[in-house]
């Protein structure tokens, strides 16, 4: 089985832990010296860098948050002088101010290695043509995939996003064997290729899809339409960009590259560290990053870590696809509910297109009410009342199976769910808590 950095990727667990301890001690010391916010937070807790001697001390360290990046915009959290920074990336996010991150030359090399490990695992190499259809620019997707593909010696086709016909023409003419883009764009490309009747001219083997949530059903639909194997990649610009965690050839969760990033799962309310396997908020500490390091960064992604060894032989822990954002989490009758879970159920029923939906939560007589409105669509509609009742029952049943609590499902007129700026408002919580 091909590996990019076999010694690191298959390093025994005890050795990974030893390496992490050394690197964490180094990182805490230099951040204490160079990053004012981190120094202040350590001082507030009465902690000195010398109190941190191994990864076991990690839970003592203070958390960091997205808001920190906004408060110290643009360069306030960099740990090196800007003359050592060779590139910046930025994202605006959906709310408020931009955030900026910086990379040293070595940071870029480490990033390339993260992505190269994945591409090698998927069987890509010098003979491959990697079409990068993520956006290039301040967004990390385009250049992140580009760097990894360059590292493995593949031929990069730097398409950036958009212009669908041209994307497909390029795939056909240039013989692209791998595609990197968002999963929704991959699905769209697949559908367009079908419409153009060129599906059988595609030579794609592997697709690397990330930067937005997607489901197993979507994976199958993409694989089916583009005739490739679809792999998940996870990352966020605050930590590195795409490649922080990557699926291997077994498509069974994403290996977090633990020689560079230490993942933890915590209870989002108490901040307490949870054992592997439990669901909670994902937290990362970057232990090799020079330019823009973060200690215990709260990603707001809710997921699980899988400690069991992977069939591929890599020893690095795997993370499941995040099932939601801690910001989006609803607690209904004491049960955690994520809009993404509802989306997944609706997608499994609606085929390729997820019907529009809205969750309405209220409290009546001290009990939470939980309604899910689903817009009727042509693919769901049938000319008989029995089928519609059956549809409603099957949505209700599947929601109960997935969520563990019952919802009142209502089929509503198309386009009747209120939208703001083109996006449907997913959650209405009328409870006065």
């Amino acid at each position, binding site marked *: 089985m091909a590996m990019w950095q076999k010694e690191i990727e298959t390093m025994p667990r005890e050795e990974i832990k030893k390496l992490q301890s050394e690197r964490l001690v180094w990182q805490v010391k230099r951040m204490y010296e160079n990053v004012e916010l981190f120094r202040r937070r350590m001082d507030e807790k009465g902690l000195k860098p010398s109190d941190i001697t191994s990864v076991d001390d990690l839970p003592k360290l203070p958390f960091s948050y997205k808001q920190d990046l906004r408060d110290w915009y643009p360069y306030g959290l960099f740990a090196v002088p800007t003359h050592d920074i060779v590139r910046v990336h930025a994202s605006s996010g959906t709310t408020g101010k931009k955030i900026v991150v910086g990379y040293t030359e070595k940071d870029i090399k480490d990033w390339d290695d993260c992505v190269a490990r994945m591409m090698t695992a998927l069987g890509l190499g010098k003979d491959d043509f990697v079409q990068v259809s993520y956006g290039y620019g301040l967004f990390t997707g385009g250049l992140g995939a580009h760097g990894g593909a360059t590292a493995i010696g593949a031929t990069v086709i730097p398409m950036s996003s958009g212009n669908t016909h041209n994307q497909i023409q390029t795939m056909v003419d240039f013989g692209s064997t791998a595609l990197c883009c968002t999963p929704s764009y991959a699905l769209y490309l697949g559908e367009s290729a079908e419409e153009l009747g060129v599906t059988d001219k595609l030579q794609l083997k592997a697709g690397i899809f990330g930067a937005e949530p997607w489901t197993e059903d979507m994976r199958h639909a993409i694989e089916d339409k583009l005739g490739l194997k679809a792999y998940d990649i996870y990352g966020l610009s605050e930590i590195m960009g795409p490649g922080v965690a990557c699926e291997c050839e077994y498509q069974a969760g994403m290996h977090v590259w633990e020689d560079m990033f230490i993942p933890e799962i915590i209870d989002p309310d108490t901040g307490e560290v949870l054992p592997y396997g439990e669901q909670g908020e994902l937290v990362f500490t970057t232990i090799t990053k020079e330019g823009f390091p973060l200690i215990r960064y709260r990603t707001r992604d809710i997921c699980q870590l899988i400690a069991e060894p992977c069939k591929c032989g890599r020893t690095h822990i795997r993370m499941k696809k995040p099932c939601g954002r801690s910001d989006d989490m609803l607690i209904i009758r004491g049960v955690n509910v994520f809009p993404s879970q509802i989306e997944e159920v609706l997608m499994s029923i609606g085929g390729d297109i997820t019907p529009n939906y809205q969750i309405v939560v209220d409290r009546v007589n001290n009990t939470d009410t939980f309604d899910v409105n689903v817009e009727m669509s*042509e693919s769901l509609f049938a000319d*008989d009342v029995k089928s519609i009742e059956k549809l409603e029952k099957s949505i209700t049943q599947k929601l109960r199976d997935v969520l563990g609590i019952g919802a009142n499902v209502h*089929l509503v*007129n*198309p*386009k009747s769910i209120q939208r703001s700026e083109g996006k449907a408002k997913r959650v209405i919580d009328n409870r006065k808590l």
Partner: protein
Amino acid sequence: MLIKQLSVFTENKPGGLAPIIETLGKSNIDISALSLADTSEYGILRLIVNNSELAVTVLKEIGVVVKVTDVLAVAMDDTPGGLSKILEIFVHKNINVDYMYAFVGSVNNKALMVVKVSEPEAAAKALADAGISTAEAKDIYRI
């Protein structure tokens, strides 16, 4: 023979049908038969109109979910037993009747029924063999 029926999804709430009827009226589309199958929460409005293609277009424009189904328009004697004669033919041929409803007008002094069956083609042939006429699209659209 077979004619086109439009089925439209509606929520069962006051005024729910109004935009549909208004939209058809504005485009000068005449409704020659109409029925509503409903539950407490929603319904299916079934329509026979004089220009089904245009109707589908204008309804989709206002965001209505609409499906086109083949149905039979059966002319029957307006006498007792007229209906049971037809149902017997279907039973004999193992054809299921999903639903039926009446037209607003009549053709050649015969009552017209919209009949939705499991196998429309076979049903039309069975009726023709038995000498029972089914209305053509052009007859319907003149009602």
